[in-house]
C-alpha cells in the first residue's frame, strides 16, 4: 500500500511537471508565432502615441522573455489563460461555459463504446464462428475506413447526439484491441487445461480469460479518452454543438493562439491524468 501511495505521488509530480512544461510550450507557441503582438488598431492614425503604447502594453510587447513566461505560468496556476483574440473574452470563462457539454459527451460516448465493444468482443470469443468474426470485422472495418468528419456528418444527417458519434469513432478500435487481447488469452495453455477438465465455455471466459485480460485493457482507458476528445472536434464543429471541440476548431480557423493552446493544454492534462490513473490502478491490482 505504501509503495502504491509513493507511485501515485510520483505520478502526480509528473503531472505537475507536465503542466509546467506544457504551459511553457504554450507560452512559446503564442510568443513566437508569426504575427504575435500585431494589432490592426495601431494603424489608426487618429490614435495618440500613448494610446498606441497602451495597445502594445496590452500584448506585453515590451516585456522581456523571462518575465513573459513568469507572467504566463503565474496566470495559468491562478486559472487565468489570457483572453481570446477573436471572441474577446477570457479563455477561462469560455472553457467554463463549454467544458460540461464536452465532458458529458465524451463520458457518455466512452461508456457506450466500451459497453458495445466489450459485448461484441466477448460474444465473438464465446461463440467463435466465421460468420460472427467476419461480420464484426466488416462492421468495424467500415467504421475505421470512415474519416471522423464523415461520421460527424452522418450523425448530423441522422440527428444523432454527439456522444453517439464519439462512440462510433472509438468503438471499432476498442473492439479490435479487446478482441485481440481476449483471443491471445484464450490461446493460453491454462484455457486448454480448464477446457479439458470440463469447465463450461462461459465459465472459462469469465473465470479465466477476462481476469487475465483486464490488465492490458485498463491501459486502453487513457488512449480511448484521447481518441474521444479528438473526435469531439469534428463532431461538435459539424453539429454546431456548444462544446470545447467546436471552440478549438473556431480558435484554429481564426488563429486564436491563446485559446487553442490553452484548450490543447487542458485536454492533454485530462488525458494524461487518466493514463496515469489507469497505470496506478494496474499497479495496485497487477
Amino acid at each position: 500500500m505504501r509503495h502504491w501511495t509513493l507511485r501515485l505521488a510520483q505520478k502526480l509530480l509528473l503531472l505537475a511537471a507536465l503542466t509546467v512544461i506544457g504551459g511553457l510550450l504554450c507560452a512559446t507557441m503564442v510568443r513566437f508565432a508569426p504575427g504575435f503582438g500585431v494589432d490592426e488598431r495601431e494603424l489608426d492614425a487618429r490614435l495618440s502615441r500613448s494610446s498606441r503604447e497602451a495597445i502594445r502594453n496590452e500584448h506585453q510587447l515590451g516585456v522581456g522573455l523571462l518575465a513573459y513566461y513568469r507572467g504566463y505560468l503565474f496566470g495559468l496556476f491562478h486559472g487565468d489563460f489570457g483572453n481570446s483574440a477573436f471572441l474577446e473574452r477570457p479563455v477561462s470563462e469560455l472553457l467554463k461555459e463549454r467544458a460540461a457539454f464536452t465532458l458529458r459527451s465524451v463520458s457518455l460516448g466512452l461508456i457506450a463504446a466500451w459497453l458495445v465493444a466489450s459485448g461484441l468482443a466477448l460474444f465473438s470469443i464465446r461463440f467463435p464462428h466465421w460468420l460472427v468474426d467476419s461480420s464484426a470485422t466488416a462492421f468495424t472495418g467500415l467504421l475505421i475506413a470512415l474519416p471522423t468528419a464523415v461520421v460527424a456528418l452522418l450523425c448530423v444527417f441522422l440527428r444523432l447526439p454527439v456522444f453517439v458519434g464519439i462512440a462510433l469513432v472509438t468503438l471499432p478500435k476498442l473492439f479490435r484491441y479487446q478482441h485481440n487481447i481476449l483471443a491471445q488469452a484464450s490461446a493460453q495453455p491454462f484455457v486448454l487445461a480448464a477446457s479439458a477438465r470440463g469447465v463450461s465455455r462461459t465459465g472459462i471466459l469469465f473465470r479465466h480469460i477476462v481476469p487475465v485480460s483486464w490488465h492490458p485493457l485498463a491501459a486502453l482507458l487513457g488512449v480511448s479518452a484521447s481518441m474521444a476528445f479528438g473526435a469531439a472536434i469534428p463532431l461538435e464543429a459539424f453539429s454546431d454543438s456548444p462544446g470545447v471541440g467546436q471552440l478549438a476548431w473556431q480558435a484554429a480557423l481564426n488563429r486564436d493562439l491563446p485559446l487553442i493552446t490553452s484548450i490543447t493544454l487542458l485536454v492533454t492534462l485530462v488525458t494524461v491524468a487518466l493514463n496515469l490513473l489507469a497505470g496506478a490502478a494496474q499497479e495496485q491490482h497487477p
Partner: protein
Amino acid sequence: MSLRGITRGLCFGVLGIIFATGVFAGVVTHYSYATQFRETPNGPPCAAHLLGTDSLGRDLFTRIVYGTRVSLLLAPAAALLATIIAGILGGLAGLRGGWVEKTILAAADLSLALPLFFVLIALRALLPLDISPTFSVVATFVTLGLLGWPASLRMVWAAARRLRDSDHFLFATALGYSKSRLLFRQVVPNLRPILLALFWISVPLFILTEATLSMLGLGVMEPLPSWGNLLRGSEDFSLMFENPWRLAPLGVLVVTVVCFQYILPKTGETA
C-alpha cells in the same frame, strides 16, 4: 491460393490502379484541377465531365484524380517519416537500454497520451493565414509525420530488444563487428519486416486524418484538391441527394482504406 491471399492480391491490384491514376493524372485527364467551366456549375455527369462539375464548375473527375496524387503520394511520405523516427528512436532505446531507453519510452508514452487532433490543429493554427496551397499540403503531412511516431515506437523497441538479447547478435558483437556493420548487417535487416508493417499501418491513418483536417478547413487548401477537401461542402445534404456523384471522393477514400486494411500483415506475420 487461400481466400486471404486472393483478397490481398485483389486489394494490391485496386491500390495499384488508384496509385497509378494519381501518378499519371496528366495522362488520365486532360483538364487542369483548377480549370473552371463557368457555364456548367454543379453539372451532372456527361461525356465531357465523367463525374460532373462542382459548384465552381471544375471537373470533379479531374479533381479526384489530382486529389489522389496529393493524398496517396504524401500520406506514404508522412508514414515514411513517422516510421523512420520510430525506427531510429525505438532501435536506439532497444539496443542501448539504460537511461536512453527510459527517456525515449517515457517520451513516447507521454506523446501517445496527447490528444493528437488537438495538437495537430494547434500546430496548424501557428501557420500564417496567407500560406500557399502547396505549403499547406507539405505542412499538413510533415506535421502528421512528426506527430505519428509514438504509436509505432513500442513495437520497434520490443523487436530491437529481442534482437539485442539474441544469440546471433551476441555472436556478431563477440566477433568484433564494427557499429556500422552491426547496424546494416544485423539491426536493419532484422527490424525491416516490423518497420514495413508499421509503415503500411500508418498510411491509411494519415489519409483519414488529412481528410478530417481538410474537411474542417485546416488541411490542404483550395484550389489544390485532396480527398478531404473534395468532401468539404458535403454537409449540404440536399445538394448531395440531388448530385450523389459528388460523394465519389468518399467512395475512393473508403475503398483505399479498406484495401490497406486487407493488405496489412496479420499478427505474427511480421515476426
